[in-house]
């Protein structure tokens, strides 16, 4: 089963290796991993999608890493998940419009157009991106790169809400 962890860490050398090594030790396969700056200076946010039966113990072990400040497991229906994909499809002049039509539906933009192929960029919900990719396959997918998944918890509605605006 895939699970998404949002890990708030100090931006220090080696922190990625420490986190990854803890997951590797348990034999958990990392499906996707994205690291970047966070809302706080000197701190990074890692979003890790990992294939694991349960994560309780790993979360506790991750907490033991000196540079890890906070760990949240994000549940799919309570979080926003996004990916970006660059995909090059074979598109000789005669088939370009067909490809662009599909791209239009998914709000994908052509970012590089050549003689025989075209590179499209699409961002959004991971499921949507997969659907898009499936529709492109018949044309011939020549190359592809996906960002790791990034995610944030949704604001809970009504009384449940615990989020406060940070000024």
């Amino acid at each position, binding site marked *: 089963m895939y699970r998404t962890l949002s890990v708030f*860490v*100090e931006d220090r*050398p*080696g922190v990625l*290796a*420490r986190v990854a*090594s803890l997951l590797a*030790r348990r034999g958990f396969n990392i499906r996707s991993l994205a690291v970047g700056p966070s809302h706080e200076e000197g*701190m990074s946010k890692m979003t890790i999608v990992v294939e694991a039966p349960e994560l*309780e*113990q790993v979360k*506790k*072990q991750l*907490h*033991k*890493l*000196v*540079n*890890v*400040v906070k760990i949240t497991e994000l549940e799919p229906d309570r979080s926003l998940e996004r990916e970006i994909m660059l995909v090059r499809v074979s598109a000789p002049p005669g088939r370009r419009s067909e490809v662009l039509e599909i791209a239009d539906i998914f709000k994908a933009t052509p970012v590089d157009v050549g003689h025989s192929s075209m590179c499209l960029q699409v961002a959004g919900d991971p499921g949507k991106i997969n659907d898009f990719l499936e529709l492109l396959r018949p044309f011939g997918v020549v190359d592809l790169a996906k960002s790791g998944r990034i995610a944030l918890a949704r604001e809970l509605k009504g009384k449940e809400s615990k989020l406060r605006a940070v000024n």
Partner: protein
Amino acid sequence: MSTISGAEALIKALEAEDVDVAFGVPGGAILPLYDPLLDSSIRHVLARHEQGAGHMAEGYAWATGRVGVCIATSGPGATNLVTPLADALMDSVPIVAITGQVPTWAVGNDAFQEAYTTGITMPATKHNYFVTNPDDLPDVVHEAFHIAATGRPGPVLIDVPKDILNAQMTWHSAATELDLPGYRPTVDGHPRRVKEAVELMANARRPVLYVGGGVIKAGGSEALLELANRTGIPVTTTLMGRGCFPDSHPLAMGMPGMHGTYTAITAIQKSDLLIAVGVRFDDRVTGDPTKFAPSAQVVHVDVDPAEIGKVRTPEVPIVGDARRVLEQLVEAWGSRQQPDRTDWIEQIRTWQREHPLSYDQQPDGPIKQQYVVEEIHRITGGDAIVVAGVGQHQMWTSQFWKFDDPRKWINSGGLGTMGFAVPAAIGAAVGKPDELVYAIDGDGCFQMTSQELITAAEEGIPVKIAVMNNSVYGMVTQWQRLFYNERYSASQLGSKVDYVMLAEAMGCAGIRATTPDEVAPAIERSLAIDDRPVVVEFVVDPEEMVFPMIPSGGSNDEVIVAPGKTVVAP
């Protein structure tokens, strides 16, 4: 403003942490540090192998409760430290290791004596540092000592490239405020949980206090004694916790687990409440965890939240420092009446009577190791720090020595590192120069690190080492006898070694005892020698096996109490 070298800064930073001794071996990359060490107040003990230096730092930390320090050069020096680091991580021993590294410009180029030390030691340390700027040294050292000593203690390594040691910096003390947003160990237990625990303790009919190394690390022995006295709850101390509760106390049941006392094992199995403090439900204690203490509710106190629920989900989890939480429990218990648990205590007395630890020393038979342990205890009055290796001798020492105080028992519990005893004893003796340090080692273990006796002899560290010479890897032969049809593959050590000569060759005194009546005089002679380390070889019975025993992964309801005699819990 005048500047100093990174190496000088590192020494100053160590002095600022009140380091009085470091154990190490020099080499190219760390030489810049060894030079100012000559002018420092820090004593350096030159080990003969970095593994020895690491275990010495551990022994020092075990005995004193302070952070032990070891130093090694890059490459092979650093890789030789891996075993003691892993050992210290498993047993929560606070040590700081400093390793030299090839110069920054050569890092990653397979330079001479380069190893990726921080990478190799990442899973063997609580934390580690690779220093890339000499200005960072004061803060790094201060943080390293803080991390090693606080929370769940453990090893921290600082890797410093040679050019950083040689670079100039302007000295500044470490920042007073540590910048560690991700490291905030919990100290106080949650008051509501503490109350819940006390409610359970007040109502339990068959409670057991199951306590371990965490109590010693936290300095919680007094609070534990107070809690046991007020509540009347019997106590079992794990291998790591021996001495945190006095064995002479009427509520003491000895050690639980694979080679524990029948009483401790069975009391846990029959208990309705386990108050687990500073323990981690290790598989050597629980056997098959699904059959462990089946009818008990569990209160689990540990400073490391990752231990709580790892093996057994407790009814009452309490994250906090063992001493602090024990004090909170005492406070919350207040002046309650002890509930009537006469039946339970009577039951425990019956088990103790029916299944005591035992052995059979015939006056004209071979020496039994248990007898040697009891004789050393008797002759020293128990007033010694006892250090063991790993194997049968370790189990017998833990079983038959009567521990009445914390920090008097040092061994390698979690990692089970053969070769631990000799260097750990040396470290303990350096840390506690006024105390008698007696190591009880197996011949197999002794052969792994005995060269450190040269260190002891040269440095005038008066350790006593009992070598239990059974000419076999005893614990291995025991398993081969019980589980491998008596096929003794690779477990025979032969009989060519002359331990007396070996000891003398290394500048120690050597004594040998081959019959039971030579045991006491040999021990007395060992105590009379105070100008050299002493090795006493006891030629012991190779056939003897450690009992009680629960085969690995078995149910704790079935205890083999003697060869061919299994007692199934009632």
